[in-house]
């Protein structure tokens, strides 16, 4: 337990001390939130209604998809995991603790957004706080799992950036943050359901913000939670301690199984 607390405490402080992680956990999401909050309602007045869920989802995407994979890849490349292995640090801690500390940073960022958005931008607060917390946790869990999985399967930093962008950029365009899902063409709307952001925005709208969901919001929560479970299970299975002369337990292409719950969701929700 002491080991876990020490590890958690160190990782949490790294999230503030490390400039790259500070940027992804706090500066980028909050900077983007302020920029969007000042600009978007003037261009698109209905955006005011979804500032809080959209910016919370954006913060989660930035901190997990852009912030989590690279430190994992660097640590593996620099022999940190080898050192951890020799000292008996389990792979489960290596994977879970950065995800948990990132979620804790996200709680702080979300609190800042929820407190300031009504004051600065006259944004409405969630109607159902329990559902808001549930959707936040489900989305954080799913994206943290995805970020960890990208870190585990990427052979180097360049590939981790590429895979992160493959999810992050479509999430921004099609995930319902800027353009509501119901305004997308049917095919694009269906494809967008592969993205955690779409599921989270749908669940926020249907369960927390007193809006209208485009498809089953509880189904979205279920997809997010099961995606997170898949992502962490695949990360644990595909994890390797170092890059040198080591054989991975499974083919990295297995990582695509993380989208299985979303694919099932497309046909069932």
């Amino acid at each position, binding site marked *: 337990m*002491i*080991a876990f*607390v*020490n*590890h958690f405490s*160190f990782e949490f*402080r*790294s999230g503030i*001390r*490390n400039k790259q992680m500070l940027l992804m956990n706090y500066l980028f999401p909050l900077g983007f939130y302020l920029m969007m909050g000042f600009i978007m309602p003037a261009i698109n007045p209905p955006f005011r209604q979804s500032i809080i869920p959209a910016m919370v989802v954006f913060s989660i995407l930035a901190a997990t998809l852009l912030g989590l994979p690279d430190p994992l890849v660097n*640590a593996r490349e*620099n*022999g*940190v995991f*080898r*050192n*951890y*292995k*020799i*000292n*008996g*640090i389990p792979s489960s801690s290596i994977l879970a603790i950065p995800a948990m500390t990132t979620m804790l940073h996200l709680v702080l960022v979300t609190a800042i957004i929820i407190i300031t958005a009504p004051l600065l931008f006259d944004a409405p607060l969630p109607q159902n706080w329990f559902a808001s917390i549930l959707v936040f946790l489900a989305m954080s869990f799913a994206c943290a799992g995805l970020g960890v999985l990208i870190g585990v399967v990427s052979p180097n930093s360049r590939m981790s950036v590429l895979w992160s962008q493959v999810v992050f950029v479509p999430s921004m365009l099609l995930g319902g943050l800027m353009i509501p899902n119901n305004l997308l063409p049917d095919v694009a709307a269906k494809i967008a359901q592969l993205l955690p952001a779409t599921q989270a925005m749908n669940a926020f709208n249907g369960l927390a913000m007193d809006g209208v969901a485009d498809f089953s919001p509880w189904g979205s929560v279920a997809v997010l939670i099961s995606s997170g479970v898949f992502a962490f299970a695949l990360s644990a299975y595909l994890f390797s*301690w*170092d890059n040198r*002369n*080591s054989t991975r337990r499974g083919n990295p292409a297995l990582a695509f199984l993380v989208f299985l719950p979303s694919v099932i969701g497309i046909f069932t929700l």
Partner: protein
Amino acid sequence: MDPVIEIRDFSKTYGDFVAVNRISLDVMPGEIFGLLGPNGAGKTSTLECLEGLRAPSCGSLRVAGLDPARDFKKLKNIIGVQLQSSGMPEAITPVEAMKFFCAYHAVSPRFDLLDRLALNEKRDTAFYELSAGQQRRLVLALAAAHKPQILFLDEPTAGLDVASRVELHDLMRELQAGGTTIILATHDMAEADEMSDRVAILLGGNIATVGTPMEITAAGAGLTKISVHTQNSCISDPNLTFPAVDRCVVKDEYMIYYSHDIGPTLTAIIEFIHLQADTLIDLRVERPSLEDRFLEITGKGTIP
């Protein structure tokens, strides 16, 4: 006494490349055992298999009676490892690192080791801001913090200044006196000669030779260097011949003879000085060093 490390017919291959080729070796408890060899000789592969980081391709390894590949969880409190690359998170401070690793070994943090290795002033400095020497000292402190039975040190003094190196050697002797077995992989022959009870020289994945530094140097064909300085320089004629001398050179006020049999050479030199009624000011006899022997073995590229 049973060996603390037993290596039997151990091989490690990577695809078609044979890094280590069926070597056998014993290391006794409390020994400082030097592992020498040029780059690519198989030192790191051997160490990594002993540390449990890799599985052997064939043969058997026992470390404190355990199979490193299978009993890895039991091994973690028995061994301490200083890797060649630091393997530390960039943002961690020495104090955090000591708490972090000691907690996973379920022992109290050894802050005294930070003090001992002159890291106290840097205890709250991020790892990436430490100098290379400070980083190595921290990694060593962490490897020794849980008082391991066996300590693996891979190039421990690379990048260290003289004072830190002396401190490290003192710490190694202290650990040895406390019963710790130390496996020392190094390119520093003087360090291996000074610190090791026995050394093995690896070459091309095979053991070229193993023994005490004295045994290894004595077995070579190296010449003993005899430096002589007399008051009246009676010996300064390079045309003088003495038994068993292969060549001689003049350097400063010294005549330097390279002998393949020092007994007759020394006797003849001293007799000659006496006959010339000269006075001996300085006489130095230097046996071939471990480095000379290492170069002799590795230079040949074959196992003698």
